[in-house]
């Protein structure tokens, strides 16, 4: 029990720091791919500290509440993952947080925020079935929805369900707001929707949303790491390769429409899942 509490506190403190460093490296690599020099690795931390020091400004109090619930939801789902809890519970907590982000965006009449909120709902509609399929596949391999059950496996899960890893990669791209799925908001200077779902959040509330995003990045990368649960080196290599692939995909693709996103996400997800499940049965 005490070990679990210590792990929970460590996850709570280290996850956002790791998320910030990952996003700093991301910006640096992206700059390199665009033949620029790029910001310092610690830049995301500077950004968030600056935002925390800004004057709080909200269009209504709902927005502030929504930002708080979003960050709590994201942090709680990371804690649940690292304490080896239930995958479905993690999924539900994550969803509650994400829904509150959209509610906050829809609480203001700004058209950018409204369109961003609607698009964020569509993104959730695309990645949530994928995550559920991945969790169901993990449960078929391990016989339990518990994260801790994954670590009792004798060989990496990637051998059994390689196609589900691709499905998770799809969900990861949508969740990280990377191109071609950065339709509700993105981290680069594309300004079609200003900042989409983030438009009306400002100052400390935007900082909280950024911290929540770091938690989510760690959560999804943590789910990727589960696929090579037998060795720490394997986990790190797998996560690093996955994230590098994300950055490259982000830089070589253009933003696509939400119709294409929904169709391809559900199509790819269902087909790959069926193939992988049949293979698992045949074994």
């Amino acid at each position: 029990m005490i070990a679990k509490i210590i792990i929970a506190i460590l996850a709570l403190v280290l996850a956002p720091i790791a998320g910030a460093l990952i996003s700093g490296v991301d910006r640096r690599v992206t700059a390199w791919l665009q033949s620029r020099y790029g910001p310092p690795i610690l830049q995301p931390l500077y950004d968030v500290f600056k935002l925390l020091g800004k004057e709080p400004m909200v269009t209504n109090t709902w927005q502030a509440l929504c930002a708080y619930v979003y960050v709590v939801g994201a942090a709680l789902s990371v804690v649940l993952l690292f304490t080896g809890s239930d995958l479905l519970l993690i999924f539900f907590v994550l969803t509650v947080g994400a829904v509150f982000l959209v509610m906050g965006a829809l609480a203001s009449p700004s058209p950018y925020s409204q369109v961003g909120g609607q698009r964020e709902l569509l993104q959730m509609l695309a990645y949530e079935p994928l995550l559920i399929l991945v969790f169901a596949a993990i449960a078929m391999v391990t016989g339990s929805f518990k994260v801790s059950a994954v670590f009792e496996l004798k060989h990496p899960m990637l051998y059994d369900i390689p196609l589900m890893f691709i499905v998770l990669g799809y969900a990861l791209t949508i969740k990280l707001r990377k191109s071609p799925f950065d339709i509700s908001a993105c981290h680069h200077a594309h300004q079609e929707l200003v900042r989409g779902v983030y438009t009306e959040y400002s100052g400390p509330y935007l900082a909280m949303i950024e911290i929540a995003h770091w938690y989510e990045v760690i959560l999804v990368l943590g789910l990727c790491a589960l696929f090579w649960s037998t060795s720490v080196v394997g986990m790190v290599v797998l996560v690093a390769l996955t994230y590098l692939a994300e950055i490259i995909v982000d830089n070589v693709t253009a933003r696509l429409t939400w119709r294409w996103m929904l169709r391809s996400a559900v199509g790819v997800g269902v087909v790959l899942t069926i193939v992988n499940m049949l293979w698992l049965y045949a074994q």
Partner: protein
Amino acid sequence: MFGNMINKGRIKSPWVVHFDCGSCNGCDIEVLACLTPIYDIERFGIINVGNPKHADVLLVTGTVNQRNKHVLKNIYDQMPGPKAVIAIGACGCTGGVFREAYNVVGGVDKVIPVDVYVPGCPARPEAIIDGVVAALEKVKTLLGMTA
């Protein structure tokens, strides 16, 4: 310690929002040139945001006239503090060659307080980057971080 980190963030991450207040587009192109790989202002943590609610520095180009002075004031008011304003180009600084025109109010400082003036017609990208750095120096002295 927390206060120190916030102050460091303020210096290291000035997000700019650019408002074309009736400029001829000469200065606007130079502002956007700062974002290209040649100048790459993201090195200094500067990001061009499209939203005054996320911005720390307001870059204004062009003369202010009777119509758009309300827009300029509105954008300035939407920015959460602490914030800085940089007037870019001869027109933004004083009204330039248009200052005598009947519809022109004058420079940006007739409507909102300006911290740094970047002259030039158009202002060079180097001068604009220097202007942002000068604004940061001003912020540093305000925060008592004279190093």
